[in-house]
Structures are given as structure tokens and as C-alpha cells.
């Protein structure tokens, strides 16, 4: 795959989406961040309109956490600019309007859950009521527990409550559900719905496509520090070609195969052909008609990691 057809709704990486929906929650322009020889974020541009739920999707090492840490002002970009509601990340105004859940965010040891939340709450101008934050984060009954005596899942819920309690306009979540089981994850996103219903913006990172698909209305896919795809979940799923048909052909030549209905791209290794599809059923039917010489046919799903690599290679080529 060498390019994203514009018909799928995918925009070319590097272009900033137009800001028709009013004030931008996040505006990132040409941001680069290096760690020694490693280019963690490579000329990244990204705009998030208010009221959206945006997933930053990518494999480990894609630059998601680095991007988030720059958005929060915990780290400065080597080049480029970032604005959060028009202010610099890390500024007092940005801190007042952004709530965040970090992967490595720790809690003050030796204090009670309720005490900690009350203290953090007091730092904001128009916070949620304590019981509201406790309710959304499902921390009920744990207010008198010491924060250093919480289980992993409970700590994660406390992190969420800390992020929510200031009633931020933008919620930034770095792999919020990484340590959760399926049930807890469902509960988490259910809790988040109440938050987005009030027109709040959420930017979260994940490496689960299914999670991004279900919860986000836009997916920004990152690999090797760059945006490799950006669009609605259905557009993204179509473009990565999440099913693959493998078959052998008696007569060589695969010209035109990637143009079959439902197909995305085709590659041949000798007589063995791999056809990436967004709709493998349609593609298979068309394939059988178009290539009666195909044999040893198998249909399988593609791991997301592989899909990322395909896309990245396509961009790099």
C-alpha cells in the first residue's frame, strides 16, 4: 500500500485539519522530540476540536506517551509548537483546563483517598463535587482507604478521579485501560460517556484498535513518531485492511487484483499472493471469479501490529 485513497476519508499525514468547529482544544504544529539518537516524535501536526473523543492509536514506541507528555507541559518539544486552548502547555491556564491520567502517575503516600481528592479539588476554580468525582470513577466506599493500600485497579480509578475532579475541558488519558480486564474497561468507558455528554474533549492513547473503534469518534494512528492515518474509526479500519486472503496462483501476475471489490492491497511472494482486504467476503467472491487459477485459499485476520507496519512502510517508501 503506497497511498491512502482520499475516498476513504483519510487525510495525508502532516496536514492540519481545518478548524471549523470553533476553538481548538489541542493544536500541535510540526512538533519533533528526540531522545539522543531516537526520534520519538517526528514533525507531528495534529488538531483536536472541542467536544471530540480522539484516540491516539499505535504500537509501543510509536511516540504516543511522548506526545502526551508534551501536551501536558511535562516535556518540551525540540521543534514545533503546541497550544492547549490557545495557551502554552504547562501554563497556569492550561493546567486549569486539562485533567490528565498518566501511566506513571503516582499518588501521595500516607494520605487517605478522600483527603487527597479534597486537596486536589481545592486547587481548581470550578471543580466537580467530591461525590461526583467519586461516583464517576467508581471509588465509592474507598474514601477512607490509604492511597498506598489500593489495588492496581483501585489506583487507576483514583487516577481517573484526580483527572476529573477539576472538571477539565480536556481530558488526556495515557493508556487508561492498559491494566484493566474487559469488564473493568467497559465500566471505565461507560463512566466516560457521562463526561463527553457535557461537551468535554477527550484525547486518549491506546494500542487496542477495538477500544478506539468503540469509544472514539476519530482515530489518529501513530507509528515511529508520525501520524500515519487519521480519520473516523470506520475509515481507519478500511484503510488498514484488517483481513487478508492468502492464495497461490498457477499463472504469475497479480495486476488488477488490488482493485477487486473489498480489496486494499496485494503483494506476491513467488506464486503465493497476500491480498489485504477491508471486506474479505466481497473480495473473495470477486477473486474466485477473476482468478479461476487461484488455489490453496485461506482467509485470516491481520494483527494490528502488522497493519501498522504495512502502513508505516507504505509511508516510508
Amino acid at each position: 500500500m503506497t497511498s491512502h485513497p482520499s475516498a476513504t476519508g483519510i487525510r495525508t499525514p502532516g496536514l492540519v485539519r481545518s478548524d471549523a468547529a470553533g476553538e481548538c482544544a489541542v493544536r500541535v504544529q510540526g512538533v519533533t522530540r528526540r531522545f539522543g539518537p531516537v526520534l520519538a516524535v517526528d514533525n507531528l501536526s495534529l488538531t483536536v476540536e472541542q467536544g471530540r473523543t480522539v484516540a491516539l492509536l499505535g504500537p509501543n514506541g510509536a511516540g504516543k506517551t511522548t506526545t502526551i507528555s508534551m501536551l501536558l507541559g511535562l516535556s518540551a518539544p525540540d521543534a514545533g509548537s503546541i497550544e492547549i486552548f490557545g495557551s502554552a502547555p504547562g501554563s497556569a491556564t492550561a493546567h486549569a483546563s486539562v485533567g490528565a491520567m498518566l501511566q506513571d502517575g503516582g499518588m501521595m503516600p500516607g494520605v487517605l483517598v478522600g483527603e487527597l481528592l479534597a486537596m486536589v479539588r481545592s486547587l481548581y476554580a470550578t471543580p466537580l463535587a467530591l461525590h461526583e468525582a467519586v461516583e464517576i470513577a467508581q471509588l465509592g466506599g474507598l474514601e477512607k482507604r490509604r492511597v498506598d493500600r489500593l489495588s492496581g485497579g483501585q489506583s487507576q480509578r483514583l487516577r481517573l478521579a484526580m483527572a476529573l475532579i477539576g472538571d477539565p475541558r480536556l481530558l488526556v488519558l495515557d493508556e487508561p485501560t492498559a491494566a484493566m480486564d474487559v469488564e473493568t474497561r467497559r465500566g471505565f468507558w461507560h463512566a466516560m460517556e457521562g463526561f463527553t455528554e457535557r461537551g468535554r474533549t477527550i484525547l486518549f492513547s491506546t494500542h487496542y484498535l477495538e477500544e478506539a473503534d468503540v469509544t472514539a469518534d476519530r482515530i489518529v494512528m501513530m507509528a515511529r513518531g508520525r501520524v500515519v492515518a487519521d480519520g473516523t474509526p470506520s475509515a481507519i479500519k478500511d484503510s488498514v485492511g484488517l483481513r487478508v486472503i492468502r492464495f497461490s496462483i498457477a499463472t504469475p501476475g497479480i495486476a488488477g487484483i488490488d482493485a477487486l471489490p473489498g480489496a486494499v492491497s496485494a503483494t506476491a511472494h513467488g506464486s503465493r499472493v497476500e491480498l489485504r482486504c477491508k471486506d474479505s467476503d466481497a473480495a473473495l467472491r470477486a477473486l474466485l471469479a477473476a482468478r479461476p487459477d487461484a488455489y490453496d485459499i485461506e482467509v485470516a485476520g491481520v494483527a494490528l501490529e502488522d497493519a501498522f507496519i504495512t502502513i508505516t512502510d507504505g509511508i516510508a517508501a
Partner: protein
Amino acid sequence: MIKYLTLELRRSLRDRRYLLLVAGWPVAAYLLFSTVFGSAADRSEGLAPTVAIMVAMATFGAMGGVLMASGPRLAMDRQLGWLRQLRLTPLAPARILTARLIAAMALSLPAIGLTFIAAVLVKGVTLPLWEWPVLVVLIAAGCLPFAAMGILVGTIADGDGAQGLTMVLYLVLAALGGLWMPVQIVPSALQTVAKTLPSYHLAQLGWHVAQGVAPALGDVLVLLAWFAGAALLAVAASRRLTLRTA
């Protein structure tokens, strides 16, 4: 910031083992030293040994409480990611630092208080009434350089390293600063060293008050110089750290 400071203090009070250590050690040391040396003639501070040692041990305990409450705790909070989390809130870094300094300095009080109480109850020490509150406030406030040193240690060292470094710093400052034995009895080279240390000058302030004499400006200036030096280094170190890791 007040709420954060309150929570820091509450956290300290809840750590009973730590309180026992910082307050128990100087009290035990006081009882030991004042019993062993209590019958000796006046020390050269011109005070009864029970009083001179009381001031020295209160200073020793105060310094320990402050060092422990700033350095190792900062290192731990940094490692746990709590500082990172706190930096995401609207609480300004300068306020975080101020609250931590005050909270650390408050940890000088248990040792001062308990040492004084032990001196009065066990050794029958008496001082003019006004001298007690002045001593408490002076010793506590004089711990400012130690709080800054602790912040510096907590910024440059991690967990166990910060704990170890704090301990070394504590014992060196106490021993060389003449808190365990009068500097007059050590070799003159060590006396010269002692006179550069904040621990020595803080004890001097206390001894002066116990003698009913006004504290010397020189002692105050040395303490302020140590505070400024440690604070500048801590700021520089935290800048470097932020640039490197963040």
C-alpha cells in the same frame, strides 16, 4: 497551597515510626549525655551541662527531623510519580516547593519539644520562662538551610541513595558541628571546619539565648548563606533534571 501543606503535615503525623525515630533519638541521646557529663563543671558555653546539652540535642533532633522530612521524602515522591502528578494540577511549582519546605521545617518541632520536656522533667532544667518559646522558634526557623539541603538531596538522589546521603549529611553535620561534643575540646583544624557549618551556628544561637544573651548576627548570616547556597543548587539541579528526563 494551604490544603496541600496541611496534607503534607498530616502525612508526617501519621508516620508514627518516623516521628518516634526523629524525636526519640535526641531525647535518648540527651538523657545519656547529660547523665554522663552532667556532673562536670560548666561547659565553655558558660551553661550548665544539662542546659548546654539540651540545646545541642534539640538542635540535633530538629536538624534530623527536617533533613529526613525533606530529602528522602522528595526522592520517594519523585520516584512514585507523585510530583509528576502534582505538576499537572494548577498548583505552581514554587508553591509546591514552599509547602514542602514549611512541612519539612515543622518536623523540627517534635524533637525540640520532647528534648525540652525531658530536660525539665528528668534533669530539672530551669530557664527564664521567655527563653523557652524563643528557643523553640529560633531552632525551628534556623533549620531552613537543612530543609533546602534536603530538597537538594531529594532532587539529585533516588530512594535509597537519598536516604543514605541524608544520613551521612546528618551525622557529619552533627559530629563536626559540635553537637555531640563541645568544639573546644577537638583539634583546632576540626574547630575551623566546625565554624563553617550551619549546625554549629544554629547551636550557637540556642546557647546564646539560653545564656540570656542576644544571638549573634554572624551566626544568622552563616545560616542564611547555607540556605541560599543549597537553594540555588537545588534549583539548578531540578532544572537540569527537568531538561533531561521530561
